[in-house]
Each structure stands twice: as C-alpha cells, then as structure tokens.
C-alpha cells in the first residue's frame, strides 16, 4: 500500500501546483481548484489504472475477490455450509474411490523403482493348458526363463499358501519365494537378521528357514528381540527364523505374513514334490529390466523362450505378455468394464452434487442482481465482476476439496483394512492431481451458470427493484433441465443399487439345490495314508448326531470363480473338440445322500461301483443328449476314458449365486487317493447344533493324530463368507444410491421452493381471483412434474446402457444380477417419482397456505 500512498502524494502535489498556477493566472480560489481537478481527470479511475498496470495487480484483485467472497459467504452461512457439504460428498466420494481404484489397478506392487519392474503374464491355450492363469509357471519354466534372458537382470518366482504356525488357529499368508525375491521387490536389508541366501534355494527341502513380517513379529511374538534363531513349526516342519521383514514392505504381503524359500514347498503343500514333477504350474514370475532395456524387448525375448518350451506339448501355445505389474495391465481388458462402471457411478454422484450446488447458487444469484446492477452502474467491468463471482464458487470448492482430500485418505485407509492388506492404497500424486482437477471442474460447473445468471441484468429494471417473475421463462428452463438431469442420474444409480440388493436377497433366499446348514466340511491334510482317512470317516460316522459321511477330493462347491472350463466330455463317435466341457467332482458313495442332492433318474453312485460309473447333472444330460434318456449311455472322458451314466442328479446353484451351475460330472473317488495338492475333505450331515459338532469332530481327529487340528465349517458359513464379499460391494452401490436420492431430493426441493417464492405474486393474484388451495397445489406440482417425467425417460435409456455394462462387468465374478426382473425397475421408478413428488409437496403447500395480500406485496 506504500505505492498507493506515494501516488496519492504525487497527485496531491500535482493538483496543488496546478491550482497555484491557476491562481497566478488570476482565477478565484474555488475556480482554480476546480479547473485543476478538471484538467487532471477522474482521480479514482487514474489510481485504478495505475494499480491495474502493476504486475502484482492480478494477485491483489484475487486477494480482494477472496476477501469479498468470504464475506459474502459468511453472510449466508447456511447456504455456504450446504454447498460445501454437497460438494464434499461428491468430490470426496469420487476421490476416495479413485484412490482405491488407483491403488489396486494402476500401481505395480513395488515401491522401489517401479519403472524397471516387470511381471510375466502369459496367455496359454491348447489341450494341456493350465486352468489357473494366476500361477502359470512350473519350476522348469522359471529356470528356462532365468537362464535364457538377457533383457532382465533377474527373475523371481513366488506362490502364496497358508499354513498354521505351531498348530495355532491363525494362519497368516505364507509366501513361497525364490531366494532373490527381496532383491526384485526392492528390499536390501531386513529389519533384523538376514534375508535368504542364494544357496538356500539350490536343493529342494534343504533350507528350513523363515522370514517373518514385522507386523506378525509384533502381534504374535510381542516384538521379541531374541526371535532370530528360534524355530517355529509350519505344519510338521520346524523352520528357523532368520530375519524380520520391515513394516509395510510391499512384497505381496502386507500385514502379518511369512516368507520361506520356494524349495521348501513340500513341507507346506502336503508333501507334493513340485520340483521333480517339474511340469506342474504353480508359480508367478516377476523380474527387473536391465537399465538399457524396455518391456517390449523383454516381451519379444521371453516370447521366443516360451515358443521353444511350447514344443514339449503338441498344441500348446503360449503368448507372453510382459507388464508393469499393475492389475490393469495384468487383466488386459478382462475386467475393464469395472473401472468405468464404478467411476461412471461416481461421476454421476459428482454431477448430481454439482447440479445441486448450481441450483443453490442460482437462487442466490438472482437475489443478488441488484447488487451487481449497482456495481455495473458505478463502472465495474463485467469481466472483473465475473471473476469476482467465480472466485466465490472457487472458495467453496476449495474448502470442499480440502475436506475431500481428507475423505480420500480415510476412505482408502478404510478399504486397506477391509480387504486383504496386500495393496498400498495411500493416495499418491495421481490421486491429488485428480482431486484438484475434479475440484476445479466442480467449481466451474457449479459456479459458471449462476455467475452468468447474476450478470444478466437489465440495469434500469434492477435498480428500480422491479425485477419480477416476468421474463423468467428461459431461466426456468435451465432449472427444469437441472431437475430432469438429477432425476435421470438418480434413476441410473438407484437401478444399479436395486439390482445389487435384489441379487443379494436371492443369495440368501434361494435354495442352492443341496443342504448347506446341516453339512460340515472338514479339510484334511494329504500327508497321511489313505487308510487313515477311511478310519477317520468310520469314526465320525459312529458319532452321535452324525447322519451321513462322505469323502471327496476337491473341496466341493464355491471352488469355481465362475465360467469354469472343465474337462471335455464326448459321446462315442464325436471328434475331439466337439464335445461338452463339464466340471468334474470326485465324490464318495454317500455324497448325494450327505448333501441331499436328489437323484432324478437312475441311482446314486456306490462305493462298490466300477470306476467308469458316473452321475451327471441335468445340465450335462441336456447338453450331451438333448432330451434323450442318457441312463446307461456311454461317454468318453479326458484321455478317452470310457464312462457309463448311472444316474442323473438335479442341478445345483453353487458356482455363481442365483445361477444354475454349468454341466457337471460326478465320478467315484479313488479310495486310495489322499487328495490333491490341497488335500481332501470329509463331509458329514449332522443333526443338532453346528458349533458343538464342529468341536467334537475337531477333538476326535486331534485325538487320532496329535498333529492334526482341522477346522470344520458348515457349507452355509462358507456360502455366507463368499456372499459377504458381495454384500460389501452391494452395500457400497446401495449407499451411492441413497446419496443420489438424497441429493436429488434436496435439489428438487430447492428448485421448487425457489420457483414458488418467485411466483408468489402470481399465486397471490390467482388466489385473489378465487383459486382454491387445491388448485394452487395442483398448479405448482404440474409445473414440476414435467421435468421429472422427462428425466425418467432419459434416465431409462441411460439405465439400459448402464445395466448392460454392469452385467458385462459381473460376468467374471461369482455374482450374477437378474437384469431381466421388472420388479427392480418398477420399484426404483416408483420410489423416485414418490420422493420427487414428496419434495415438491412442501413448497406447493407453502404456496397454498400463503396469504394472498402479503403474497401480492411480496416482490
């Protein structure tokens, strides 16, 4: 302000000089003074021009605008708070979910030098192709890539597993890793002790050493400083603790976890030797690029090695992709629907919030025209005024943005706790850049229309204070458009939420086609001889309350992640490739009785049956025989094994909730089998209390072998566990829907209240002319219902598009939505119309209750 004083002094000095000259020329004192002023021009505007020429002018006026904006906002604190809350809801939710998506989808799970990190993601096809594409490599694959590569400095392989520590109930995530794993994931030094040595991965089974995560060390061992060198037992093998991995190390495990050399897998995976059977795939491979190499070069090189390895099996074709290790790259478009779908929903919420704020500010903008008119007539530039008004919405959005930053942070932390803590969801610069962009956009979207509206002033009208309801047609159109848009957007969101809730209720209400509540599933270790399991089964059968017992190989039901490919089954005479793919379950003789799966035709399997006897599901019967009677018919299994149909079982609904499973083949389990890599399961149907039976079974088996401590669970609890994951998702979508409808109600209410207050004079005239209350209410409602109906129409088109996207996105998950059910759509539309009418009713009632005289005076 020193500069201003200086100028002031200069101007005064100038005027004095001029005045004294004029006096010398013979003018009177008053005349001399006036002439000097006249010659000088408008002092105020000159000072303003000098100020404008200053380079700091922009900042100065900005500060002025901010101050003015703050004062204006403080004058209407309720409005300001409403706007900020609405914007925070829109922006915060948006940024929070974005930070989760960003953390999960676009970030490689390493912290140090992500630029050189690579992840090998092959696509394998052919008759011998492995089913699980997450763990596509065998030990020999790993060694071939490791020795063959020149573009990568190193490659590490890993596989996750679970193992109880010292037979206790908690089973942290266990990682089987190559000994260079920590080098690839960017950890040089453990917190304590040492990392693995290269020679510890040389010979299978030779190095029983283990690294613990700091979280596990603190929670389970109270951070015992003497931990290094002690032993812990994983299954039956004692492992020496050699080091502690620091807190939050991103090596595929966050939180409690342990790492052991992958050469120790036999001790963890039930004695299966995956090193001698070198073609079993179970590993994932990551690596680091040489500094001068690119991922594309690595992909070319590794594809060459993959092609050489493909020659071992006829028809095997491996397409190698080298990615940056982020989930988005890994999925390669498979679940790409999901991101846009979620972000689309969030964008709708943001738009809803913005339209709400627009409407809130709009009502004030009109109220403010008089002030603007005064400013304009005093010579303020329109551009300058516009900037002043926009600054206000920028202030609002900035406050909302700050709240949103906090929301984004806590939301991502919440999600980190909710899901398996393998992801680092902390917001990074991408999130904050996104947040800033969204905030700025929101400020412009919400602020622009009201600012333009305030500037649209007829000077003489406004100054006279006669700006009334006349000429509001175009502006009313703007508001109708906003209401329509809100209804349309809410309809889309609510329908999505409705579909999820509908799907959720079917999960719990629908009969899956087999008994779940009274069936216990007991996982068994595969290291015992087969006769031991038979003995366990016999003992369990003789327990009180146990009604039926059976042994099975893979844990049945809920195993498939949807869209199971399965083995190909053919009729005799059908060529390879023209058959039907069906999932296969190896079951004991009592399986159908134990699970109460009805045999519709023929008979169930018996333990005495020949190994070729099978029971098929209805779906398989339909797919192979097309309505003809399959009983006693022959078919060919994998490797041309001849099979004979003994019975047809009713279809079950277990793979995807609410959807009938695909074709399924039940064959008799090999009595000598000890189960696959994961061991077998014992299933039993019981009468009475589940918890007591669980405990009795656990004690019984523990009594038969001290090393076994199985955890029996009912099928129902497993079902609920899986369902709960989707319930969480459904809840999320539902809460978005609730927020949408809340925003819509606030918005519609706001608009109606505003329109009613604008039309008060007109309403007063109508009432003075004898209109009844009912007529008034009807008029007000009628003026509001049109945009709502149009919104519903446009919304249903958008909804159709959204639903198609949703169905696509869920195709790869065990969750199915019934998009054809009209109940959801009708319910949502009815709800929305009801809520909208409710929101309009309040203002309409207010209009009808108004006293005609005071309404006429109101202007």
């Amino acid at each position: 302000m020193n500069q201003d004083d200086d100028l002031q002094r200069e101007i005064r000095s100038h005027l004095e000089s001029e005045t004294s000259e004029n006096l010398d020329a013979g003018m009177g004192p008053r005349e001399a003074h006036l002439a000097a002023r006249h010659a000088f021009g408008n002092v105020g505007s000159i000072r303003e021009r000098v100020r404008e020429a200053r380079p700091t002018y922009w900042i100065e006026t900005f500060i002025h605008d901010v101050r003015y904006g703050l004062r204006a906002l403080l004058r209407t604190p309720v409005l300001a708070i409403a706007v900020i809350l609405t914007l925070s809801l829109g922006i915060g939710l948006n940024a929070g979910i974005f930070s989760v998506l960003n953390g999960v989808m676009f970030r490689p799970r390493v912290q140090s030098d992500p630029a050189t990190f690579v992840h090998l993601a092959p696509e394998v096809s052919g008759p011998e192709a492995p089913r699980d594409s997450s763990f596509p490599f065998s030990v020999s694959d790993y060694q071939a890539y490791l020795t063959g590569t020149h573009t990568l400095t190193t490659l590490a392989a890993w596989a996750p597993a679970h193992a109880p520590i010292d037979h206790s109930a908690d089973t942290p995530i266990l990682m089987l890793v190559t000994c260079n794993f920590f080098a690839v994931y960017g950890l040089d030094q453990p917190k304590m002790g040492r990392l693995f040595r290269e020679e510890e991965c040389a010979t299978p089974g030779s190095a029983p050493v283990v690294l613990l995560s700091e979280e596990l060390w603190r929670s389970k061992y109270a951070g015992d400083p003497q931990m290094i060198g002690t032993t812990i037992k994983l299954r039956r093998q004692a492992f020496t603790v050699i080091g502690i991995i620091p807190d939050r190390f991103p090596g595929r495990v966050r939180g409690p976890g342990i790492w052991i050399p992958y050469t120790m897998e036999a001790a963890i995976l039930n004695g299966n030797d995956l090193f001698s059977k070198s073609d079993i795939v179970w590993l994932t491979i990551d690596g680091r690029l040489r500094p001068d190499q690119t991922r594309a070069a690595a992909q070319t090189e590794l594809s060459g090695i993959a092609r050489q390895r493909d020659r071992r099996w006829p028809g095997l074709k491996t397409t190698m992709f080298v990615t940056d290790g982020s989930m988005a790259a890994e999925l390669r478009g498979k679940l790409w629907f999901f991101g846009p779908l979620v972000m689309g929903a969030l964008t709708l919420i943001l738009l809803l919030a913005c339209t709400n704020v627009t409407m809130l500010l709009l009502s004030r903008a009109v109220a403010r025209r008089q002030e603007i008119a005064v400013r304009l007539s005093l010579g303020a530039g329109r551009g300058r005024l516009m900037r002043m008004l926009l600054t206000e919405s920028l202030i609002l959005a900035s406050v909302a943005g700050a709240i949103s930053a906090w929301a984004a942070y806590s939301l991502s932390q919440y999600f980190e706790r909710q899901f398996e803590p393998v992801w680092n969801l902390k917001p990074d610069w991408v999130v904050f850049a996104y947040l800033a962009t969204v905030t700025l956009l929101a400020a412009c979207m919400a602020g622009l229309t009201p600012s333009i509206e305030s500037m649209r002033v007829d000077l003489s009208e406004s100054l006279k204070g006669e700006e009334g309801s006349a000429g509001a047609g175009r502006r009313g159109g703007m508001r109708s458009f906003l209401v329509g848009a809100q209804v349309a957007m809410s309809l889309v969101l609510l329908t999505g939420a409705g579909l999820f809730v509908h799907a959720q209720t079917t999960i719990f209400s629908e009969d899956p086609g087999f008994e779940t509540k009274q069936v216990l599933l007991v996982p068994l270790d595969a290291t015992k001889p087969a006769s031991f399991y038979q003995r366990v089964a016999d003992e369990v059968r003789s327990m009180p309350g146990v009604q039926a017992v059976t042994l099975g190989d893979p844990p049945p039901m809920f195993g498939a992640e949807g869209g199971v490919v399965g083995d190909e089954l053919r009729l005799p005479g059908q060529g390879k490739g023209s058959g039907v793919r069906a999932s296969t379950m190896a079951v004991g003789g009592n399986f159908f009785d134990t699970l109460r799966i009805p045999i519709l035709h023929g008979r169930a399997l018996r333990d005495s049956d020949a190994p070729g006897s099978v029971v098929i599901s209805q779906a398989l019967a339909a797919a192979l025989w097309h309505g003809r009677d399959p009983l006693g018919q022959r078919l060919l299994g994998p490797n041309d094994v001849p099979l004979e149909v003994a019975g047809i079982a009713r279809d079950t609904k277990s793979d995807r909730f609410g959807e009938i499973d695909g074709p399924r083949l039940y064959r008799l389990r090999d009595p000598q089998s000890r189960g696959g890599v994961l061991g077998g399961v014992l299933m039993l149907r019981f009468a009475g209390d589940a918890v007591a039976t669980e405990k009795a079974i656990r004690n019984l088996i523990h009594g038969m072998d001290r090393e076994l401590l199985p955890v029996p669970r009912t099928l129902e609890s497993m079902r609920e566990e899986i369902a709960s994951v989707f319930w969480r998702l459904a809840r999320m979508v539902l809460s978005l829907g609730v927020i949408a409808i809340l925003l819509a109600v606030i918005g519609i209410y706001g608009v109606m209240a505003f329109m009613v207050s604008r039309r008060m004079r007109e309403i007063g005239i109508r009432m003075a002319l004898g209109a009844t209350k009912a007529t008034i209410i009807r008029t007000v409602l009628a003026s509001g219902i049109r945009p709502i109906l149009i919104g519903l129409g446009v919304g249903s088109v958008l909804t159709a598009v959204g639903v198609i996207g949703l169905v696509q996105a869920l195709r790869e998950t065990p969750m199915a939505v019934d998009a054809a059910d009209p109940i959801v759509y009708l319910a949502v539309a009815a709800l929305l119309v009801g809520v909208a009418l409710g929101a309009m009713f309040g203002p309409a009632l207010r209009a009808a209750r108004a006293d005609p005289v005071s309404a006429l005076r109101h202007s």
Partner: protein
Amino acid sequence: MANEDKLDLVQGTLDMLILRTLRFGPAHGHQIAKHIQRTTDDVLQVEHGSLYPALQRLARKGWISGKWELAKDRNREFKYYRLTAAGRKRLTVEESKWKRLATAIAQVMWPAAEN
C-alpha cells in the same frame, strides 16, 4: 464541448513525449504535463491524470527513475523523474520509428505529385 482543433493522443505516443520531455532534465509530473501542453501549443490534449499510469509503466521498464526531492526555488518536495541510460536509448529508437511512420503517412497523404 471539446475544441475541434484539439487532438487526442495517438496510442503509445504519450510514452515517447514523456521521454522526450525528460531529455531536457529532471521534471515532476506537473511540469511534464505543462511542458507537453505548452510545446504543442495546447493542440495535444493530455488529461493530466493519464500521465501517471504512463510514468509508472516507464519506471517499471527502467527507462525513467523517480525520486522525491526538494525543489530549488520553493521549500516543497516533488517527485522528480529523470531519464536513465536505457530510457535514452529507448527514446532514440522511438524517435526513428516515429520519423519513419510520419514520413510514410506523409507520402500517402500528400504524394510528391501534388506537392
């Protein structure tokens, strides 16, 4: 009410006139205004106030510098402006530019044939 014979200043020429005025030695705002008015026989109409934004602009560009000093004859302080070395150079550039412009305009307006 404006005198038909008086001219508004051409955009940008005020700067040049100020620089030219200061070539005769330091002057304060009022003196500059009076000088311009006097030397053009009151033909050029300069609103005194408009001098000040121009002075600010020139000072910021480093062509002139201003300082409050006591006037010699009177016991009063004025803010005196003087030409800097850069301003002197600038004035030469402006002058030659102006000369070329004036010549060019003159050639269009009064071609040699009519002379």
